[in-house]
């Protein structure tokens, strides 16, 4: 008699823990051919709010770490992902219907993207900060600081590379994130959460909700303790993006607008995804005896 395998329960990732949705709902995830793969937790409005609380709680500690330390932690995520290659490749294959070698390439690119962003932790300040030569006896310095809690609507199609390309730039500068994964392709996000949980990322820095962005996002967009939102995951739905942008105005969230369609994440990402979620702080110090 063959052995009965132990199947995994796919759960949310909030505050470093893996809870089910408080709502008790789940939804069926199919592979690219339509076969049943798993029941994923269907995140609710309450889950989103819990995730915001966790992200806010983690913000001070994460933003207060040295840039060098954040760089090492992001690099550590890449190490863990490298270690879990077969699992991640399988998740990408299932979700995106790619061949083994294509899925390997996606994973290569995802890990390399993370390493690329990890290196930015202690460099962005030098590239976008400034000493300002004011006309007076003052030392004047402008530096980027993290915006705070950022809601990230992860891309729907690119379930791993897109996800990493959206999350890494947010957290590398010291923000904490509440991420809504791809609805139809949530499994790479869940596996990514497991990598985060084992790679020195403090609980609450990244929170991952599986479920439907169109139902969760309005609560995040209107949440008064969320400082910014990336609309990437609802690209193309202009009615929804407009209403989210309107809701975001309630506390003047920084909004990273969605492109008309999901972009090609294989291209050079540039600095935009990082600079969209930093604030410039300028400090004046008098010079004198």
């Amino acid at each position, binding site marked *: 008699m063959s052995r009965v395998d132990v199947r995994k329960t796919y759960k949310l990732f909030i505050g470093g823990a893996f809870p089910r949705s408080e709502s008790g709902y789940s939804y069926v995830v199919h592979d690219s051919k339509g076969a049943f793969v798993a029941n994923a937790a269907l995140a609710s409005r309450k889950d989103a709010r819990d995730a915001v609380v966790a992200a806010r709680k983690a913000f001070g500690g994460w933003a207060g770490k040295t840039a060098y330390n954040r760089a090492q932690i992001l690099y550590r995520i890449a190490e863990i992902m490298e270690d879990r290659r077969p699992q991640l490749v399988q998740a990408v294959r299932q979700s995106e219907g790619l061949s083994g070698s294509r899925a390997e390439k996606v994973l290569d690119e995802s890990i390399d993207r993370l390493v690329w962003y990890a290196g930015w932790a202690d460099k962005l300040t030098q*590239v*976008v900060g*400034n000493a*300002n*030569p*004011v*006309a*007076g006896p*003052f030392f*004047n310095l*402008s530096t980027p600081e993290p*915006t705070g809690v950022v809601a990230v609507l992860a891309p729907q199609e690119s379930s791993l590379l897109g996800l990493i390309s959206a999350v890494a730039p947010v957290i590398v500068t010291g923000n904490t994130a509440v991420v809504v994964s791809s609805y139809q392709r949530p499994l790479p996000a869940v596996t990514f959460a497991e990598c985060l949980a084992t790679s020195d990322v403090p609980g609450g820095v990244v929170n991952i909700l599986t479920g439907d962005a169109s139902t969760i996002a309005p609560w995040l967009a209107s949440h008064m303790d969320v*400082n910014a939102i990336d609309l990437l995951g609802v690209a193309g739905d*202009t009615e929804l*993006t*407009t*209403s989210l*942008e*309107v809701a*975001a*105005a*309630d*506390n*003047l969230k*920084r909004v990273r607008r969605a492109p008309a369609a999901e972009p090609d994440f294989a291209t050079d990402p540039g600095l*935009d995804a990082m600079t*969209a979620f930093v*604030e*410039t*702080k*300028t*400090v*004046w*110090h*008098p010079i004198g005896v």
Partner: protein
Amino acid sequence: MTSNVFEYAPAPESRSIVDIKPSYGLFVDGEFVDGHGTSFKTISPATEEVLSEVAEADQADVDLAVKAARRAHTRVWSRMPGRERAKYLYRIARIIQERGRELAVLESIDNGKPIKESRDVDVPVAAAHFFYYAGWADKLEYSGYGDRSLGVAAQVIPWNFPLLMLAWKIAPALACGNTVVLKPAETTPLTALLFAEICQQADLPPGVVNIITGAGATGQALVGHADVDKVAFTGSTEVGKAIARAVAGTDKRVTLELGGKAANIVFDDAPLDQAIEGIVDGIFFNQGHVCCAGSRLLVQESVAEDVLDRLKRRMATLRLGDPLDKNTDVGAINSAEQLARIRELSDIGEAEGAGRWSAPCELPAHGFWFPPTIFTGVTQAHRIAREEVFGPVLSVLTFRTPAEAIEKANNTPYGLSAGVWTDKGSLILKMAGSLRAGVVWANTFNKFDPTSPFGGYKESGYGREGGRHGLAGYLKGGE
């Protein structure tokens, strides 16, 4: 202390240098044209004297101005080499300097601010902004944001620093190759209209700068115009939110400089004489009509009594009155409406149990005036500690530890500025790093410079004005 210890003879600046016309049109496509809305009067807030009648731009006027700006962008300004654009901006900077006295007097008449401030701050800093950004026009490729302009910028500015806010808006926009339609505040249009003349004097190509006057409806029409690529607004957080909603779903780029409720934090080891000057400058500069005003004084408990005594003593020497008098420290409140708001919030402060004290000064019989005022025993729940008064009203709170000061300072939806007073360098850096505010002044306050980025965290808005960062809001690569 009796008031006649510091009796001064009047020293009024002559207003003969300004030539205020009985009426003004809109400045569109290089010419003054009639507006089609209902024209309105601008008055001197110090005397309530009617100064002039100003045209109101309606939807059609806004459309004409945007069309003129679009044409100028496409045909002239975006094609002109940066070094040529630069020279126009240098010209403007020079004319502002040359006509500095005229601008300062006009600003004080229309706005009510003391001449010493318009003369020593508003006008020279405005000129400096044009001079600074002029130099960027042919160096944009080194800015980090590329050198591609956005197109037409819709700019709406407030009444507290009419000319200076105009400079903050127009100088970077033009340097980056954009053209602008700017609406000054309805209570302070005159220096913007004089600036239009300066554009003519500089032979700036028609349509590059368009100045349209009007109130909220004109601003809405401008911000909502479909052919505008960029919206830049300085003003209240409430209107800022309305603008953020209005541009939702469009490709318009937006920068917002909004309200504030800055904490000015005084530690027990602070150089107190300097700190008192900084507190006074922080809240009474420009009658407290300053978005980054230090309107919450957080003073360490052990020195609170001493600081308050010294502060009251200093406040008693402030001279309130004729804005054109060179000895005046505190001018007129800009409008009846703003005065009503300051009175209302102050009355609420008293009703909620805070102790009210005003400097003993005589208020002129005409015009809009409010004496420099402090509230003691203020808690974080008091409305005067939470809402922007935008007037010469200081709320005083106390703290014991740096951690408590940080928590109280950050306990606000705003995040524009903050001040820290201490002799301890490491404490300054700790505080500066912990305050969620876009500008932090250490042992100084209310300093501005064209090279220094200015702008807020949280509900104080987004984007920066000034410095290299100020270019980002006007270039395609700055997103």
